[in-house]
């Protein structure tokens, strides 16, 4: 390679001005080590161009030096900042103390208020509960009375019906009087019994009502003795001349046990 031709191509100036690409640059730096002339030329161009540039030098304003110093130094101004910040911190911590004291006081007050109103609320709740209980009790009583009243009213309607015939059944035994009334409506066939007094039976026995038509005993149903008073509806009977009650085994019988007729109407 002719070094002079290489130099004359202007490559040195371009290298100095940073105009070469990465590969040209690498090549130039390799040749720099091989050719002393190239190295000398580089030195010349470098010094000449920097001298040329120095000829254009201008002193910047002194204030610019301070701006540079401020930008890169953390000198006195930084320390002042720190002091200011500590002062602010002290102020803040005092403020925080007041805030903490105030919030503690608020906490105490609100805790007391909570307790006070909670007890008041609890009292009111208890009173409300007991009043609610009383109200329910009254409602129940009213319903019971209403139920009884309706039942008595309906019994009275049956008793007062002109088609209803009343058959009193009596029986005397060991100083006790057994009393039962049978109400029979001959138009509709509805039959009711009103147990006024009957002795309790064994568990496996039940009273059974029979309608007597001529010589025939017609089943009118078994009777459930209960604490309830008033009329109990039995089976409808189309014709009856008299009535009898027998003691039968539980569930009743199709034909009456005539040995155990407790009572019969006249």
């Amino acid at each position, binding site marked *: 390679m002719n070094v002079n031709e290489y130099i004359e191509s202007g490559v040195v100036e371009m290298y100095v001005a940073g105009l070469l690409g990465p590969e040209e640059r690498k090549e130039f730096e390799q040749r720099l080590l091989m050719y002393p002339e190239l190295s000398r030329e580089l030195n010349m161009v470098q*010094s000449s161009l920097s001298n040329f540039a120095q000829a254009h030098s201008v002193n910047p304003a002194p204030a610019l030096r301070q701006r540079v110093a401020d930008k890169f130094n953390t000198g006195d101004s930084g320390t002042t900042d720190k002091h200011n910040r500590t002062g602010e911190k002290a102020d803040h911590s005092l403020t925080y103390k007041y805030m903490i004291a105030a919030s503690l006081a608020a906490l105490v007050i609100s805790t007391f208020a909570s307790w006070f109103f909670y007890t008041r609320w609890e009292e009111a709740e208890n009173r409300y509960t007991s009043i609610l209980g009383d109200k329910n009790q009254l409602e129940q009583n009213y319903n019971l009375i209403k139920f009884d009243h309706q039942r008595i009213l309906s019994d009275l309607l049956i008793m007062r019906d002109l088609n209803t015939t009343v058959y009193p059944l009596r029986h005397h035994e060991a100083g006790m009087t057994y009393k039962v009334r049978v109400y029979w409506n001959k138009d509709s066939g509805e039959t009711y019994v009103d147990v006024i007094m009957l002795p309790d039976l064994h568990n496996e026995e039940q009273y059974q009502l029979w309608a007597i038509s001529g010589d025939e005993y017609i089943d009118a149903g078994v009777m459930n003795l209960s604490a309830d008073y008033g009329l109990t509806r039995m089976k409808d009977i189309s014709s009856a001349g008299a009535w009898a009650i027998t003691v039968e085994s539980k569930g009743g019988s199709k034909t009456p046990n005539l040995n155990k007729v407790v009572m019969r109407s006249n």
Partner: protein
Amino acid sequence: MQSRNSESELLVQISQGENQAIMKLYDEYSPLIYGIIINLVRDREKAEEIFLETFNSIISKSKSYKSEHNTLAIWLINMTRQAVYSITNQSQYSEYLKNSKSNPEQPFSVIKQAGDTYKSKHEAVLNELESGQRQMLEMILFGNYSQSEIAVALGVPLGTVKTRSRAALLKFRDGGKS
């Protein structure tokens, strides 16, 4: 001009964040850097802002100087030129070139203002240059022009550019030997 070793040393200290080294670089090279900037942008306020940014980018790239074959002055000149063009987002020199074409005798003038005390021993050499020579050196160093680009831009043969610019460079060499 400092020796290559002490230049590297200074840049290593700067890359390690030593503030004294930063201010030393400023004191020695701010006229060179600022001179290029003010000549390119021609506005003092703008030049100062660009200077701060340029100086900042030089500091942040100080580590890369290790692998540089150029002298510190040349490296700084190249860094400055790149920074100005990237900050202003345009080639300021091409604008200057347009103006200088209408008035080719006006050189890339040094803006000397009242209070500027910088005296370069090379300044006198500028006056020895023929106007064409001076413009070629400006284009190479500040305008990022290759010789062939200069030939196209100025409308002269490439050979003429080579001989003229080389003659101009040789004039400055003597001054650089001190």
